[in-house]
């Protein structure tokens, strides 16, 4: 009787310890997977890229926007409007969860909420943030096939209430960890938009994401395409990430 109890306790202990280790290692792995996904969207060092955002309704172009984007680290980015001419001189600065907007007509930087729209289906945060790891906690959800491609499904939960989407479901290729698809949800659990990561190009060091198609959650004919180009390592002075500096930018 005593031996049986001892054996039961030992098995339970082994099971619990093993389970804990399993959970921990799975959590660690999924974080690594998310970092690998983020690596397709930028560098670990400060870099710059050009971003073109085109808004479509029923397959015809409604509006277009081009931004010169500088990324300092996971939490800081600086975006300068370069097209259309009517918008030149506008600047978006994102540091942590803060977004400041500068417009030469206002002549002073004002805060924006991350949810506010930039163009079409794209919010300020969609373009200003080049990674998921900073804002979200990942959790393994399932394995699933998308268009014949084996994918790992990751549930991303916002680390705080200040990010644009409380929950994202991300589909990542099980080998190579390329992002395939993202589903973005509201507080109430409503699907706001779907993102398809459709094009990757080879740059000097590795493959990087160059095209994302964003489909509205309700009006499926409303589509916005974000294209990334001219990735290169470049560092802006720290002063440029100070909101007080924005009026100094020409």
């Amino acid at each position: 009787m005593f031996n049986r109890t001892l054996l039961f306790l030992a098995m339970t202990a082994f099971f619990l310890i093993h389970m804990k280790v399993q959970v921990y290692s799975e959590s660690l792995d999924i974080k690594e997977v998310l970092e690998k996904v983020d690596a397709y969207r930028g560098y670990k060092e400060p870099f710059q890229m050009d971003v073109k955002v085109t808004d479509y309704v029923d397959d015809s172009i409604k509006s277009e926007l081009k931004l010169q984007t500088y990324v300092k680290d996971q939490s800081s980015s600086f975006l300068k409007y370069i097209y259309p001419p009517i918008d030149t001189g506008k600047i978006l600065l994102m540091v942590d969860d803060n977004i400041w907007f500068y417009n030469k007509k206002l002549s002073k930087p004002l805060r924006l909420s991350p949810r506010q729209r930039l163009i079409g289906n794209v919010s300020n945060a969609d373009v200003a943030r080049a990674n998921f790891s900073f804002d979200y906690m990942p959790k393994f959800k399932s394995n699933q096939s998308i268009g014949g491609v084996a994918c790992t499904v990751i549930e991303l939960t916002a680390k705080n209430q200040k990010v644009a989407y409380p929950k994202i479901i991300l589909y990542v290729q099980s080998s190579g960890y390329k992002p395939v698809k993202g589903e973005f949800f509201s507080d109430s659990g409503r699907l706001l938009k779907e993102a398809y990561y459709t094009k990757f190009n080879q740059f000097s060091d590795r493959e990087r994401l160059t095209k994302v198609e964003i489909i509205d959650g309700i009006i499926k004919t409303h589509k916005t395409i974000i294209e990334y180009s001219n990735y290169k390592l470049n560092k802006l002075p720290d002063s440029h990430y100070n909101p007080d500096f924005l009026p100094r930018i020409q």
Partner: protein
Amino acid sequence: MRVLILIFIFLTFTSFEKELYPLDFSFDQQELYLGYRQSKVNANSKSNPNILDLEKYYFDLRHYTEFKVSQERYMSLNSKFKSKFLISNLNPSSEFDFEELYVSLSPTDRFFIDVGRKNMRWGTGYAWGLIEKFNDETRVINEDNQFKNIFLVQFFQDSSTAYSFVNFNSNSNYALKYHQTLNNFDYDVYVFNNGKPGVGLDFSSIVSDALEIHFEGTLQKGCLTYYPTNPTQNIFLWEQYKNNSSIYGQFILGGQYTPQPHVNMIIEYFHTSLGLNSEDYKLLELGLNESIKDNKYQQNSVWRQFLFEGHTHYQFAAYRQNYLFFRVKKEELINNINLAIALYHSLDEGSSMVFPTIEYQISDNLIGRGKIFIPIGGSETEFKRFYDVYGLMTLSYVF
């Protein structure tokens, strides 16, 4: 100013390495139309209809050209040239001016010195600017802002801390600003003297992904606001200051809410002890009536009439003591059309100024805006007294 213009012209066309530091060139053009109806420009003209020498309609067609040149290296030269042609049935005129003309020196990427005429805005308020002591002439609606010559020194310690010092108008007028960002909160502390010494504070923060809050406040010793002291005299003989030894406070408390990505709302409450309280307002009424009896401003324009009635000395929506501002903007109402409705409301009088604005992007370079100003309230209230319904149309073209 002449010296600066000469330096600007000389350096722009001679010494700079133009290939390495190309000229940043932009050209912005605006056409503006204003229309006034004579019928009830203000309540006082009813009691003496001859006081205004107005046509039935007042046309004001303005043409603005803004030409901006800047060149960056360790020193940049910045200018914003503005020409204005006014075609009016009252006073046709033309003006040419440098709205901005300043030299900027930057020995390092953190340290800057600007000298000349420069447009600057400080503070977190959307509808009011309490801390911009160097922009005392700023009108929220009037597009003719006056900018003064300044000497500005700024040091950016890093991405979260900055120090600014500005000297303006005369040697004794200055403002100091300390800026700090802490996580999701940023604040500025000010010390200033624009003839009256004071201190200020502003901050802004985000509470959630949809909600932003901000505050801006000042305390100053003494007051530069015109104040009616002797109702039996002409209003222009009133004392300039309320009380030089008292402490006057002003503050704005506001927030910005984005319920949906296409919809943005801003609300601000503004209190100023520099404005007229109920007692002051009674004195103003008496003063105005005395002045109108003199009937000495009969030949002056509608603008003069506005000034005559007190707005010379009071900023728009800062005339009394308690105001609300509200704006809701819906982007992409229909294809390429944005709609915004804004409201200034005087809590002391219950009067308002509502102005819906429609913005239409005609092409990548051309944008059109139409705005109608609608005063609401009793005939003796601020917005109804000083303004009639009027419209404003602008076409802005950028090369």
